[in-house]
């Protein structure tokens, strides 16, 4: 099955990915508008991948995590850095490891 890609980001991110051929781009302005758009993307049948920049994901906060928790298999959501290269200090993936494997987080933290 073929699916389209959507991007939620600042104007530069949206411009860049639009140049690369992404079908839906949304420029973040305020929290409510973006949340509504995100919900629309999530409900859409033809979108398979949603890219959202880290700062926006963080601004959406709990609502965004709620969306992540409740979503079905598709679309896949991926958080990407914006042009400032900002990455959150707490890596969500490490949280995942901590929850899933418990104590083995230590082993991994040493090798990585």
């Amino acid at each position: 099955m073929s699916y389209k890609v959507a991007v939620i980001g600042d104007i530069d991110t949206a411009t860049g990915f639009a140049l690369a051929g992404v079908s839906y781009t949304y420029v973040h302005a305020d929290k409510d508008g973006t949340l509504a758009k995100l919900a629309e993307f999530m409900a859409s049948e033809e979108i398979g991948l949603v890219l959202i920049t880290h700062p926006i994901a963080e601004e959406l906060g709990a609502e965004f995590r709620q969306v992540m928790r409740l979503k079905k298999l598709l679309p896949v959501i991926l958080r990407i850095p914006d042009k400032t290269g900002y990455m959150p200090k707490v890596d969500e993936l490490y949280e995942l490891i901590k929850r899933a494997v418990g104590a083995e987080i230590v082993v991994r933290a040493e090798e990585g």
Partner: protein
Amino acid sequence: MAAVAAAVVTPTRMELLRLRRRVGLAQRGHDLLREKMDALVIEFFEVLRRIRDARVGALKQLSVAYRALSTCSAAMGTIETQQASKEARHELEVEVSARYIMGIAVPTLEVEKVERSALARGYSLHTTSSLLDEASREFEKALGLLVELAELEESARAIARELEKTKRRVNALEYLVIPRLKATLKFIMMRLDEMERENFLRLKRIKAMLEARA
């Protein structure tokens, strides 16, 4: 805990046999789940290792792309760049299918020909700078890598969810169900032994009484 279990159970031989079977079943289930958990952990770490590599590459490419876009905006003008991005063809599609790891559905994302030729992009070539082509190309490359990364991260998330669930089941069996069954089993065995001793004693007494009478 044993007392709770004992209150509802009737100490009979039938019950004992039934319980023994249940303990055996629980134990086998526990072993199987344990094995599943081990396999999932191996899979999980394999995916994590791949994420780490993919992430480095994708993020590097993405920052290259942002830089190229900045250069382009500076040379061509921000408005013109945005205009061109609106004119570009937006028909990129990813192929999504499901893959199964230990019975968990994880999506696989695949994208064909992310990188397009300048002509295929759809913006007007003679009004735009070659820097725009450059920026588009870098973003296309970045997008390809991000799609890969998205697949991996989603897999990791799915495996972690399953792992958590399996872990909870293993623990429930190991620390709750099996000890409780074993406690009940022990209670029944003790009770049966006790009844046997009582019976034995009763017979001895009767025999003594009969002998005394004779």
